[in-house]
């Protein structure tokens, strides 16, 4: 889908939850149908607003996990933060049939469309995988062969979101390479990376700057800043390193 830019002011509207899927112990995907959804592009997000019965409101932003090809269905993946105000409600309380107020799609800056080409470097930390997953799903749905490397930093294998889908996709598609780094607990017999990302790790994984790659980095703020600085030091031009910081702890 071409994904034309939305040329009117965004308003709040309601989507209905039609599916819910536990991705990990803490992460859940909610699929909504949104009437008159204009379509979106991979990488964009929605703002979600909750209203308590006394009028108290809380708003948070969530990246869209589903590719544009799934429109008008929109899937968000939410990771429950222990002291979060909104995420525990979305993960533990929301049921199929509930309505959620949302505004979107938002942000044409952090998007990738197949026609933009590559090679593509996706760097995700924790729940930062969500908008990158929309890009990977879009790449597949569009039949794109753009060479893609995903560096996914997670505390452990159990916390990897979309694990089966990613590993199947990487196994079946030689153009998609999946590199994990497990920062807290490594699986038995693991010979891959077992540390937080640093310039050395990125230097081994990233496309060479001379390949003119496009890079997208998403996750907690310190993770994003480390990765972005590392890629720039490896010669990536600023304009080709797009970042989406999720804040100090990655959400709420």
């Amino acid at each position, binding site marked *: 889908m071409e994904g034309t830019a939305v040329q009117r002011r965004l308003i709040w509207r*309601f989507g209905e939850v039609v599916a819910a899927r536990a991705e990990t112990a803490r992460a859940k995907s909610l699929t909504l149908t949104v009437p008159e959804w204009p379509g979106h592009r991979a990488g964009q997000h929605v703002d979600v607003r*909750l*209203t*308590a*019965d006394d009028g*108290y409101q*809380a708003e948070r932003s969530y990246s869209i996990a589903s590719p544009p090809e799934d429109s008008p269905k929109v899937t968000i993946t939410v990771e429950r933060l222990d002291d979060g*105000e909104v995420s525990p*409600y979305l993960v533990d*309380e929301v049921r199929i049939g*509930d309505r*959620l*107020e949302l505004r979107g799609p938002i942000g044409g800056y952090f998007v990738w469309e197949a026609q933009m080409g590559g090679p593509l470097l996706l760097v995700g930390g924790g729940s930062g995988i969500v908008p990158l997953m929309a890009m990977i799903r879009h790449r597949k749905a569009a039949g794109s062969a753009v060479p893609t490397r995903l560096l996914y930093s997670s505390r452990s294998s159990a916390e990897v979101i979309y694990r089966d889908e990613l590993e199947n996709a990487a196994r079946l598609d030689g153009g998609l390479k999946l590199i994990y780094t497990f920062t807290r607990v490594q699986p038995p017999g693991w010979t891959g990376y077992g540390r937080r990302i640093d310039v050395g790790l990125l230097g081994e994984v990233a496309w060479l700057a001379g390949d003119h790659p496009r890079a997208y980095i998403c996750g907690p703020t310190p993770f994003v800043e480390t990765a972005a600085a590392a890629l720039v030091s490896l010669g990536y031009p600023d304009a080709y390193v797009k970042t989406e910081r999720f804040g100090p702890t990655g959400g709420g």
Partner: protein
Amino acid sequence: MSSISRGFRGRREESGVAGRLPPGQYLERGFPVLSAGPTPHTPLDRWDFSIMGSVTQPKRWTWEEFRALPHEPVKADIHCVTKWSKLDTHWDGVSLDTLLAQVESEADYVIAFCDGGYTTNLPRDEVTGGKAWIADAYEGEPIAPEHGGPARLLVPHLYFWKSAKWVRGLRMSDEDEPGFWESLGYHNLGDPWKEQRYSGD
């Protein structure tokens, strides 16, 4: 069509503090950080506090000089315009009465200015008579940078955006000058007991 999110309550908890919470506020046990910019980190050997503007003679204190001024403990309830209130907070600081006694000024208004460019405006009689301090300790410890350290203005009888973080001085002014939030739709004074959140309230 109701826009209420079934079963959503947020973080707020029921409290037994009726009478201490201004209208529309809820009790908060944490201490949320609301920042409109990067946290400044001015080294103490470069920090100073000044009172200038419409004064006969400006006055400046280094950190050592400021620390040597008479300090007093302050126990206060604080109220944020975003609706959280925190009761019985403990600070230590220098009263604005002490500081303003060291300058001569007929000015009616005080504009607090801060590292990072934040400003807030106050009528002079809202910060005198034991109502305002430059605080340098919170709960017995130096104020953490994210909470405005090394020193912040403390004016607890008004919404907490008036208690400017990273304060570096006061400009005495004959004219009122709306500050950072006052110029962007928030109330010029901000009395939580009259629920003066926004311009025109």
